[in-house]
């Protein structure tokens, strides 16, 4: 397996680490993000380190009208497409201003689902490929402190699950990635418990492994599976009194 790998939302810390994992494994890389010119140095890095071919592409998750053209315009239909698009926003802003909340919902659900839908159809027609969606444990249960982001991630997780269900018979595999805390720009200045906090490189390695083994759902840092099992199962009357 050494076909091209497309990374959507390629400027994020997680995306950079994912690109390195696949570059090291010898895959040509397609980096896509807004303001694609800022991906140039990352593209040179991948090419220099691993001697793989790298292209950069302009891509805006919120401009869903452009997605069909974007997919059609890629130099090759990727073997693996990884969607790392997302925006955390701030819960207080989302509460005060529903318009701001909508932007968060679109960036974490509508945009990613739209572009993956186009890629899914193309891969289905070809009869092979892998789609990877980076969602979040925040989608496992809505919490007061970030339910706008969480709800969009919940939608995205459900979308990926349905897509997997539909495409499994068509030779296309879907991986859902549920990171907990990851040391990225998103979490800068926020203290998180060390055992629950992954390095971006761990996420990159975990995704490469999941793609190869055709795993369905991965929690980066496996303890999160247990943590979320507990959180999901707290009865609602109790949960509403907590501040997790």
């Amino acid at each position, binding site marked *: 397996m050494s076909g091209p790998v497309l990374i959507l939302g390629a400027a994020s810390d997680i995306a950079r680490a994912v690109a390195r994992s696949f570059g090291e494994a010898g895959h040509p890389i397609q980096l896509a993000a807004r303001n694609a010119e800022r991906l140039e*140095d*990352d593209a*040179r890095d991948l090419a220099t380190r691993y001697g793989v071919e790298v292209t950069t592409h302009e891509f805006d998750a919120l401009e869903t009208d452009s997605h069909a053209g974007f997919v059609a315009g890629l130099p090759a239909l990727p073997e693996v497409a990884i969607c790392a698009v997302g925006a955390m926003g701030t819960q207080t802003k989302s509460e005060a201003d529903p318009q701001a909340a909508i932007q968060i919902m679109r960036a974490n659900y509508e945009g990613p689902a739209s572009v993956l839908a186009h890629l899914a159809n193309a891969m289905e027609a070809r009869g092979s490929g892998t789609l990877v969606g980076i969602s979040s444990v925040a989608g496992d249960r809505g919490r007061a402190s970030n339910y706008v982001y969480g709800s969009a991630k919940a939608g995205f997780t459900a979308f990926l699950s349905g897509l997997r269900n539909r495409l499994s018979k068509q030779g296309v595999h879907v991986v859902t990635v549920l990171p907990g805390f990851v040391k990225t720009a998103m979490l800068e200045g926020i203290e998180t418990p060390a055992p629950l906090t992954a390095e971006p490189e761990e996420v990159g390695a975990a995704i490469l492994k999941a793609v190869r083994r055709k795993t369905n759902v991965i929690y980066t840092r496996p303890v999160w599976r247990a943590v979320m099992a507990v959180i999901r199962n707290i009865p609602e009357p109790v949960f509403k009194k907590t501040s997790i």
Partner: protein
Amino acid sequence: MTELSGWGLFPQIDCRVVRARCEDDVRKAVLAAPLIARGNGRAYGDAALNPGQTLDMTGMDRMLSFKDGMLVAEAGVLLADIIHAFLPRGWFPLVTPGTKMVSLGGAIAADVHGKNHHVDGSFRSCVDWVELMGMDGEVSRVAPGDELFEWTLGGMGLTGVILRAQIRLRPVESSWIVQDSKALTSLTETIDAFEAAMDAPYSVAWIDCTDGPQHGHSILLLGRHARSEDLPADRPKFNLQRRGKIPVPFGMPLLFKGRALQLINSAYWRLKARRAGRALVDWDSYFYPLDGLANWNKLYGRNGFIQFQCVLPRDMAPDGLAKLMAAIAESKQGSVLSVLKRFGPQTSHFSFPMAGYTLAMDFPANERSLALMEQLDKITLAHGGRFYLAKDARMAQAVAKADPRAETFAAMRKETGLAARFASVQSERLGL
């Protein structure tokens, strides 16, 4: 705020850490408040700490181009990553310190040396140019011969933030080292052996500084890159497997005291003496024996430890080293690792090396060690020597200023305004 320290875990200071991912992030930080750049935190003391603003450069770690051994990369890339990418293609750093976990920026700022200083010089020897961000947020490209370049190599981050550099790697035929080891029984013998081996590409000695019966015994290791014909036919030319890491818990240091330390040192000597001679050693264990132990810096406990590293000019070295080693033995503080190397001449304005001998040791961070190190300072100065800022955590200002170059460096920083923008706990302590 984050509690930060250098590799020696002493001192530990609350710092506001800002992470840079691109040039704009650096500019924002430089224009915002005084700061010091930080690489991978392998300097032992307080050189990469600034409570107001410490700029973490490890997010800027892109390799930008590579051609015929010439690599352009961002300052945060680690030597380990460079080796991982290019050793399989037949290239190795021209100069490397005893750990591969240093950043390119850190290697430039400290102008690090390796076991080959006597033939190849310091890290500067492989640097074609450096891109540096000054206090106004402007980037300038400086090259050997430029004043700012000469101050930056060895300038400990106090001349600006290093963004990118072009370095030259050395071609190698394999990832193996042909090592010749010799067991010697006195300091004099050791120095004679170093002098006789001036054209050996790599040389380093481990020397017993305890007050045990083997005081002054040493193991001298000479090395060179193995050529194809040095390898047995079944040996892969390039072996890049990453070694597993042995974790080290807090609190082991109790073992490393007094009599136990003597025993460890002499047992080590006897073991190595028995195996003296030629061997084929893999690059990782030859250059980076300590990297195989994860967090070995925790060995000394939570209070941390301090390295003492000085260099003595060639003609004063035999006497000075003998006095240093006698003082250490007498203090019974010992040092698990005492390392002796031969340096060639100084190159940059403010870099550590000078033609002569350098001795490096570590001591637990406590009152007795601090007192001992003050004694070692005096002996070093009396013999025309100087100290390595990348290892320092505790020198007095007067000691640092005994090096006439320190005044010139400080004056240059003041005149140009650099002193007001780039500062570390170390530079404040030493008045640089």
